[in-house]
């Protein structure tokens, strides 16, 4: 589903990604962990080209996405992204947040877009918040709306960048539940998170990133209980 070959990313002179090779199968749920500044977000953002890769190749569904011929907007419709700080549109209701892109990009009629939106609101458990503006939602609710918004474009892949890091602890669960449901439905997901519970429950594989490379990659139990690399061991000891 996703294949990354020798991906490099520089910000000016700073090399943030130093050669990433990775393959994500259809329906696989990949959890990315690693210290702050190790390049997790940059890696994720290269996958929908919110950051432009400096070198290397990225394929999604067999199509090379970092080539000049690709329609970047088409690509992004197929890869949904969820941000740490939600980035909901404050001037739109929950419903408006979800229907905006399908209506404006795909040209779906309002009634149909609303129907899709209500189904998604139902899925994330917020049907009663359809007409609420983001400023009146809790963090957990905002993030669930943000997930619904991304799903409304019917993406093939979902990217999550620390979706629960900005939440109060009591709201983390409700968001992870939605993500686990999504994983159960077979969505291909790449999730940057330090929620070990989620990784064990829903993750097929955990990648440990440090210093711009993937240091180790293994199923959750293996990586958490029996890390092979010294850097992984040190990181896990510090964090968990």
């Amino acid at each position, binding site marked *: 589903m996703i294949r990354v070959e020798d991906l490099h990313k520089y910000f000016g002179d700073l090399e943030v990604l130093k050669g990433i090779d990775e393959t994500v199968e259809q329906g696989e749920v990949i959890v990315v962990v690693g210290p702050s500044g190790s390049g997790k977000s940059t890696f994720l953002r290269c996958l*929908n080209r*919110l950051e432009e890769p400096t070198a290397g190749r990225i394929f999604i569904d067999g199509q090379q996405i970092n080539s000049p011929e690709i329609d970047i*907007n*088409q*690509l*992004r*419709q197929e*890869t*949904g*992204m969820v*941000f740490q*700080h939600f*980035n*909901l*549109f*404050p*001037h739109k209701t929950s419903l408006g947040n979800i229907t*905006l*892109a399908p209506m*404006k*990009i795909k040209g779906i009629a309002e009634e149909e877009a609303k129907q899709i939106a209500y189904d998604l609101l139902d899925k994330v458990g917020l049907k009663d918040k359809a007409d609420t*503006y983001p*400023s009146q939602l809790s963090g957990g609710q905002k993030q669930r709306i*943000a997930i619904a*918004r*991304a799903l409304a*474009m019917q993406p093939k892949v979902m990217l999550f960048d620390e979706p629960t890091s900005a939440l109060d602890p009591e709201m983390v669960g409700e968001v992870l539940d939605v993500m686990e449901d999504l994983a159960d439905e077979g969505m291909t997901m790449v999730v940057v998170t330090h929620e070990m519970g989620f990784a064990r429950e829903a993750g097929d594989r955990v990648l440990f990133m440090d210093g711009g490379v993937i240091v180790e990659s293994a199923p959750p139990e293996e990586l958490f209980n029996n890390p092979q690399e010294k850097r992984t061991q040190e990181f896990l000891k510090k964090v968990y």
Partner: protein
Amino acid sequence: MLNIGLIMEKIADIKAILPFLLKGAVVTIKVTSLAVLMGIALGTILGLARVSKSKWLKSISKAYIEFFRGTPLLIQLFILYFGLPNLGIKLSPYFAAVLGLGLNSGAYVGEIVRSGINSINKGQMEAARSLGMSYPQAMRYVVLPQAIKRVIPPLGNEFIALLKNSSLVSVISVKDLTRQSRLVNSRTYQTFLIYISAAVIYFCMTFVLTRLVNYVERRLSVSD
């Protein structure tokens, strides 16, 4: 002691000069309104160019804004009205006035639009783009609707300043409120009365404009 006779006389004087001043006020309103429209159109383009990715657009817009903000409006009007004829381009006073005020206002509006757009969190553009919106779509449906609310108060200030600055067009023979006042003055020498009346009329116009801006501001902020 109140001198009823004198007061009656002054009221009669005001009645005599008022039609001339109001005629000028209409011209002031017309010239300013057209310049405001031009300023909004031009300023939006300049502001968008200023935040675009194109280096070229950015520097043109920046140079434009710096030139018009860094030189006196009076000189800009002189160039348009008295200078251009040397190059064989002759503009009517009204056209030169609207053009001069509009070009000048565009620079200020451009700066306001730029800072309005920049005040919107970058995450908004990213979220819109991540859904598959093109840059223009993201601007139109996500960034600008939010920026517009922040832009209204400084824009209001700019247009109030523009209305007052429009008195400068009197020197390029536009018969606005200021020029009408001077014309009446040269005939009647009721100097104090005339200029106080002109000030009151200007004040009424800026007062109405201020209320209008406040009203729009309140209307736009309902969704927050």
